[in-house]
Structure formats: C-alpha cells, structure tokens
C-alpha cells in the first residue's frame, strides 16, 4: 500500500486506558492500514480521524475553538429557512445547484461556494417567495405575515415592514443605516409611478438576496487574532438553530438572543432540550443522520431489478423511514449512543415488515415494533445501511466493513492503490467470501482488507437489499469473521456486541456530531476538545440527547476566533 505508511503512533496513555479492545487498534497500526487517520495527520478522512489521544499533557491550557468561515445556507437550510420565515413549503432550492460536501457532510462552510448561477437562482427565488407571501398576507395574516401594515399611502409602514422582516431574515436586528438604504429602495418604484407596495416588495426581495441572509455571518472585533471570544447571542442562536433544525431561529430562541441570556449554560442547555423535542429537529435525521449513516443514499441506490424485482420506491421510502425514526427515538428518549448497535426495537410499516418477515403492523406509516429475540436490532441490521453499502447485484463485505470503520469508528482505511485486481465476477469465480480471501493473499491488499472484510462477513446473512438469507447461490452463508488480534465472532449479534464495546465508537460519534455542528472539518487542534466531550458523555451515561447538549455548550461551539495574516 503505497500511501499508507506503517507508522505506529499509538500513545501510551491510550493503551493504558482502553483495555482489551486496544489490542485490535494496535494490530491495525502494525498492519500499516492506518496511515490516513494517524495522530500526526492533519488531513483526516470522512469527518473522522484518530480515535483519541487521551494525553492530558498535550491537552493542558485553553482550547482553541478553531475558525469557522462565513457559512452559505445549503439547499436544505435554505428551504427550511424560508419555510420558517414565510411559511413557504414549495422547496425553492430544488433547482439550486447541488452543494458540494467535504468531511462527510454538505454543510461545510469552506466547501459551500457561490456561483453566478446560484446568485441568479437566489434572485428568482426571492422574487417568487415575496410575491407569494404578499398575496397570501392579503388573504390571511398569521405567524408568517410580512405585510403588517399597508404601505400604500402610509409613509412609515415600509420601514416597519422591513425592520421586522430583516430582524427575522438576517437573524439579528438591522442597523438603522441598513434600514435607510433598504427604505430608499422603495423610492425607485415610486419614481416609476408604481404603488408604494411595489417598492416595499423590491426591498423585501433584496433582504433575501443580501449576504446577511445568504450567509450566516459572525464578526470578530479583531478578525486577525487567534484569541478566542464568545460569539454573541444572535450568532449563538443561529449556530444552535442550524445545528439542531437546519433552519433560522424560532421565536423563543430569538427572544433568548434579544434578552441576552442565551449564552448562560443553563439557558443554552434548556434550549437544546426544547429544540430536540420540536418536530423541526427531524432535520437532524434528514441532514446529519442522512449523511453520517448514509440514509440519504437510499434515494439513489439502484439494486438490479432482475435480481431484486421486489425493490421499489415504497420499499426505498420504508428503509429510509426506519433508520430516521429509529435514530430520532434514540435522541428524543436520550438513549445511549451505543444502542445504535443493538436496540431491541425498530420502526416497520407493512412494506418493510414483509421485507423482514415480520407481522404487518397494518399501516403504511412505520410503527415502533419490538424485535427482541429476532435477527434484527440496531443499525447494522437495517436495510437502509445494508442496501447503501451493497453493489447493485451483490453484497459488498468490503463496503460494509469500510462503512463501519469510517462512519462508526472514524478509522477509515486508505483507498486502494491503482492497479489492484478487482474481485473476479461471474460464475465459477467462487463466493464473495472466497473471492475476497483470494484477494487477501496479496499482502498489500491484506493490510486493509483484513480490517474491513471480516466486519462485512459478519453481515453476510443480509443480502444486497437487506433481506435475511441462510444461503446464497454459492451455498450456506458463513457469517463468521476474525478481527485483527484474533478476535473471532460469528454473525451480526456478536459483531454488534464487539463494536458496542469498542472505545473508538463514542469518540467517533462525538467527532461526527461536532463536525456537523460546526460545519467545518476537525483538525489535530480539536482532539483535546473531542476528548473532553467524550469524557463528559461517558460521565453523563452516553445519552444521545446529552451528546447534543455537550457539543452545543462546548467552547468550540460557543466561541470563535479570527486568523492571523494580512487581508488580501
């Protein structure tokens, strides 16, 4: 493996702390398939990185909160924001160019760029949104009302409308200078002989095209120093709201920013709990879980219709819904993050119950169903994950193993070098297991595949769309595996219990949540903060909701700093 240098950088402190599972970690390092996620690397892959230093000496002193670039709203955030601002549920960002992702998520500020194409779409969307809102208001009014007075023949009304709307759209009060300039825009329409409302609507459109709306902007008193300072309460409300709801702050959160109390840890944590109980926090399922656990991929998987004629859009939707409702329950009930692996319940509708061989609940909407004593239970048995990590025409133990390593343990193996022979396909080439075992006779391949493949073998009872099988075309399924360090197991249940005990799991979940919360890739400088949070999580009992509270009240989340260097 030409890129994965055989570094052994396992800190002694870690070895003494971690107990039995450290054996596996040590063997991984010795195997050489650890190059991209080493402690010395600043370029960790898949939002992951190393599983923890634990070295108290390295972590003395204050934490660097890191630097967050001004953050353009991504497509999901744009839609949710205009929904909460104007009551618009048309999803105008559908036609926006796709948001590129980095570190495993599409809310990474550094990666979210703005092109002329997108600017044009912003302008068109703003026009459509304001026109629709204006027309709606004349009929109803209500919480999303923009037209709070009639600007025609009422000189003060335009400013009143704009001040109110800008406060909500910009997530902070507009300055009087800003209001002056926006109100002046209304004169343009008057000069053309149009009604005052035409001008007000122009100014409202401009509010939605302004950088203050398009970007989440945080200001430093001195943008060129590294000294950390707390973000102000408006900025904090915005961070929290986009973290937990992918949207603009609601009225209660805004009022906590207006009265300047949000930065108080008790108030902040209280708001986290409240928001996690709000239906809008389902955005975490769409956006965070959708990318962390690959649930979003169920929208685009293409199982071979000849091999899997039963796969259709209804099943696709049921798979997605199962994982979303399952993780949502872990969060809303503050269950342990470890239950992700082996909870004894899941969410099934009729379609998915048929797929899994369970009694139908009698509904198209998924119902919570006990799976105690069955083959199912936990994310590793859910069809969304099992399908997203399969080839169209067969399972891929490699992809499943890589998913566990990168998404759950944050120890993604480096990608294969060029020129490696792929698995032979077709009849006469043996079972997938046999072909992979052949592949691993090459020591270059073995160094990584000995990590990935056994995990995938343990899941071989689940076919490429997540149905249980006792045998495939090559004969009875062998779901046994040997993990590095001679840890042998048989089947998904035993694998899940090994992973549940793996010390890298909680650290990795913290890293994933923190990456998403901050919208930036983590660096070596964040490791100490990750360790702090992991410790706090364990102290509190590893509850999922607690984890969100710990991240939201951390220095990394509540502080910011500038960056040295001259401005261009």
């Amino acid at each position: 493996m030409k890129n994965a240098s055989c570094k052994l950088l396992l800190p002694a402190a870690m070895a003494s702390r971690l107990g039995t599972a450290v054996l596996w970690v040590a063997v991984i390092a010795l195997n050489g398939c650890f190059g991209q996620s080493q402690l010395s690397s600043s370029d960790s892959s898949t939002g992951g990185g190393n599983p923890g230093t634990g070295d108290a000496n390295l972590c003395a002193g204050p934490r660097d909160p890191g630097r967050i670039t001004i953050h353009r709203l991504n497509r999901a955030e744009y839609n949710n924001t205009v929904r909460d601002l104007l009551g618009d549920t048309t999803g105008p960002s559908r036609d926006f160019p796709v948001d590129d992702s980095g570190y495993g998520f599409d809310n990474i500020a550094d990666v979210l760029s703005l092109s002329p194409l997108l600017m044009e779409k912003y302008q068109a969307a703003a026009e459509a949104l304001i026109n629709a809102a204006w027309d709606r208001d004349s009929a109803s009014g209500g919480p999303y009302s923009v037209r709070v007075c009639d600007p025609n023949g009422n000189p003060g009304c335009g400013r009143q409308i704009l001040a109110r709307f800008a406060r909500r759209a910009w997530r902070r009060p507009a300055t009087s200078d800003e209001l002056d300039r926006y109100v002046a825009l209304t004169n343009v329409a008057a000069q053309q002989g149009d009604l005052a409302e035409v001008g007000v609507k122009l100014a409202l459109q401009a509010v939605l095209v302004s950088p203050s709306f398009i970007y989440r902007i945080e200001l430093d008193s001195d943008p060129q120093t590294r000294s950390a300072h707390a973000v102000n309460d408006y900025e904090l409300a915005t961070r929290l709201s986009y973290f937990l709801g992918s949207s603009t702050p609601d009225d209660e959160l805004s009022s906590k920013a207006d009265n300047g109390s949000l930065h108080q840890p008790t108030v902040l944590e209280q708001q986290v709990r409240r928001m996690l109980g709000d239906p809008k926090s389902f955005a975490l399922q769409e956006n965070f879980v959708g990318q962390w656990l690959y649930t979003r991929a169920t929208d685009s998987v293409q199982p071979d219709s000849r091999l899997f004629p039963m796969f259709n859009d209804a099943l696709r939707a049921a798979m997605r819904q199962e994982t979303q409702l399952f993780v949502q329950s872990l969060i809303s009930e503050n269950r342990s993050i470890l239950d992700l692996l082996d909870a004894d319940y899941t969410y099934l509708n009729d379609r998915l119950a048929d797929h899994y061989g369970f009694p139908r609940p009698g509904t198209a909407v998924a119902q919570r169903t006990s799976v105690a004593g069955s083959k199912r239970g936990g994310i590793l048995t859910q069809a969304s994950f099992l399908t997203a990590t399969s080839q169209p025409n067969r399972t891929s133990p490699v992809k499943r193993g890589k998913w566990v390593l990168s998404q759950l343990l944050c120890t993604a193996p480096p990608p294969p070098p060029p020129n490696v022979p792929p698995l032979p396909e077709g009849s006469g080439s043996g079972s997938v297991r046999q072909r992979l075992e052949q592949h691993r006779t090459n020591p270059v391949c073995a160094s990584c595949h000995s990590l990935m493949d056994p995990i995938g073998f343990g899941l071989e009872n689940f076919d490429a769309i997540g149905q249980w099988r006792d045998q495939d075309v090559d004969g009875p399924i062998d779901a046994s595996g040997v993990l590095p360090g001679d840890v042998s197991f048989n089947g998904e249940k035993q694998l899940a219990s090994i992973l549940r005990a793996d010390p890298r799991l909680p650290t990795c979940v913290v890293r994933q949540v923190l990456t998403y919360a901050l919208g930036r890739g983590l660096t070596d400088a964040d490791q100490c903060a990750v360790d702090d949070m992991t410790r706090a999580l364990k102290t509190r009992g590893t509850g999922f909701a607690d984890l969100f509270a710990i991240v939201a009240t951390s220095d990394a989340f509540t502080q910011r700093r500038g960056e040295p260097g001259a401005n261009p």
Partner: protein
Amino acid sequence: MKHWQLSRRTVLRGAGAALALPFLEQMLPSIARADTQPPKRFLAWYVPCGIYMELFTPTTQGAGYALTPILQPLAAHKSDILILTNLANRPARPDGAGDHASGTGAFITAAHPYKTQGSDISNGISIDQVIANQVGQATRFPSLQLGTQGGGTVGDCDSGYSCAYANNISWSGPSTPLAKEVNPQSLFDRLVGDIQQSEAAAQKRRLYQQSILDVVKEDSNRLQGKLGRTDQRKLDEYFTSVREVERRVQQQPPSCPVGTRPNLPTDIRDRATLMLDLMVLAFQCDLTRVASFMLENAGSNYAFTFLGLSGGHHSYSHHGTDQANYDALQAIDTWEMQQLANLLDRMKSVGEPNGTLLDNSVVFLSSEISDGDRHNHDNMPVIVAGRGGGAISPGRHVVFDSEIPVANLFVSLAQVCGASVSTFGNSTGPCPGLSA
C-alpha cells in the same frame, strides 16, 4: 448586446410537448447579415471512469484511419472529428489515491488540485473560463456549465478530495468551482425565460432588478472590511456573482426561436438529450459561446440497466482485464460516443453563413483518467470535433511521437476560439497537428 446574426425578433413557439426541443428547419433563424463572420464556440465534454482504450484508439493513423468499435457511433461524423493520441494530463495525478476527483478537478485546468476535504480548496482556472473571460462578454451568458448529475454523494467524495473537485470541471479561479445546471427546465428558463415580455415591462424589470443588486452590493462592500481574509475570499464569490448577474440583467433578452419549455425527465438518456439540445440552442442563438458538460460525475457508479448492465460503471471500470468487464465498458463507452454523435448531428443541422454551427465550433471530449483500472493520466482519450472556423482539419487520427501535455491542446483550442492565450497550466507551447 452585440448579436452577430439576428436583426429582428422571431420568437416562435413550438407546438406540441415533444420530449426533445423541436429543431424544425423552418424554425432556424434567418441570417440577417450574411457578411458577418459567425463566432467560434467552445465545449468541453467530460465522461467519467476513463475509456476502454484498446477498443477506442484507432490502430492506424492519418486521414484514412479505421474506426474502432467504440468509435462506431461517430461513423457519420468521421470527417468532423480528430482523434489525438499521446496527450497527458500529468498535473491531474493525485497526492496518493484519489485519481477520480483529482483528474476531474484538473480535467480542463491542467493544474494540480490540492488534496483537501474542504478547508483550503485550490485548483487552477479552467480553459473554458479563460476563453469566456475574453470572448464571453459579448453574449448573455459568458459561459454555461451543464451536467446530468448534481451530486448527492454520501461519505468521502474520493480519498480525501472534496466533492468540489469531483463534481465540477469549470473553475473561475483557484478556489471557485462553477456549479453546473442539471435541470433542463431551469436551464430553459434561465436561457430564454424572459423572452416573452413586452419591451417596456422588460425595461422596468431590468431597472428593478438592478436596484436590488445595487443595495446588496453595498451590503457586501460594507461587510468586506469587517472580515478576515478567508471570509473576504468567500464574500468575493458573492460580489463577483452579483456583478455577473448585473451584467446579464442589463442586457437585452435574446431574439431567437426558442421552442417549448421541456419537461423534466428522470431517465439519463432523456436528460442528456435535453441538455445537449438546449446547449445547441444557446450556441445557435448566441446566448453563449462557451460551455462545459459533465455526463455524470467523477468515478460515477451509474448502473446502465438500459444497456443490460446490472453493475455500476465504476465497478466495471476496475476491469482487472476480465472480459465481462471489458464488454460492459465497451457498451458504456459506445453509448457515450453515441451521445457525442447526437450532439454533432444537431450542430450540423444548424446552418451558418460559412457552413454549419459545428464548423464554427470546437468540442473537446475526454475523461478524468485513461484506463479505469490503472488510473493513469497519460495516453488520455481525446476527441476534438468541429473545425473551429477553419483552423482545425478534422477527419484524422494524429499520434504524437512523444507525449504532449493536454494543456498544449487547451492553448491551441483557446486560440482557435479567439482568446489570446500563450501559456496555460503546465503547457509547453501550442499543440501541433491540428491543421493538416
């Protein structure tokens, strides 16, 4: 706005709801001033996962070369295409693994994409943007970025490279990828959506849109001074985009037959057809002279079920010299060449004073790598179609004795398209052999 061809408004509305835009002969614009030279057009076309080179590269050279199996769909256009062998895009080689993203980022930048997942994206400007910066100001859209697949990848895009490299081939600057349009309806609306307004209404609308842009531009100016350098760079993207939209707002809408608004297909075949039809419309109506097109994204694992293939493109491309994989690649690559042939058909059907639209165009087609298994960036598959207004002599297979940077080809093609360019990327000069 300087339209080279039309002096009267001939807005026709096509009848029926055909999938493809109606390109009926009677709807083609009449050329008002036949003495005006038509402009040159540039298109860079990307296909993912390399090409099965053994069945792509002709075994004979020169004008009498024999078409290979993968090139068969182009038989009717043999005299309009140039096959170039022994071009390399060495800057595309990644640091470590990641050839798909790196090769895609470098596709038409011939620069070395910096390996990062996000915090410090760095590439070069792409050749289409170099051309657009010089010739694009004459048209409503300096350039268009089109594709068939938006993105939506979960997980790592490619071995530590940001998806920005994997999903975009056009770059207006080192850190600014230009997102592409993948929705044919939206593209139609952008191109010609405002064409049906009265002149007075359109004029007032331009004024209003401009006034909005003025206010937000001032917002961005005032903000600029309060930000650190990375944030300033981000806000520059905003400012540049506003300026670009501003320029467009100030221009007259085009006068050109536009056809009907297309429907929104889900099938990749229909999406490809529509995007190519609209691209031809944009060239034909002189809405733009520069375009890029991605037929899927870096390392696409699209399953071409309509070709009878159940596996994904990327999986097949790691062929391991297995015949079944080669067969699949041949089918996919041949399908890709059929799409190119369809475009060339369309471009040839548009008459211009000195020939056809194709005669006045340069179409560059290649992939992010050469062989899908070796991931190599030398011996790239390269087709150049069109005559570039006469500067190019197609109908040949040219094999260079020693390796030439593809950047040299970009220099030459940019020059053909009227851009003053002497160096680009890792170029060492112009590319020989383009004219006979």
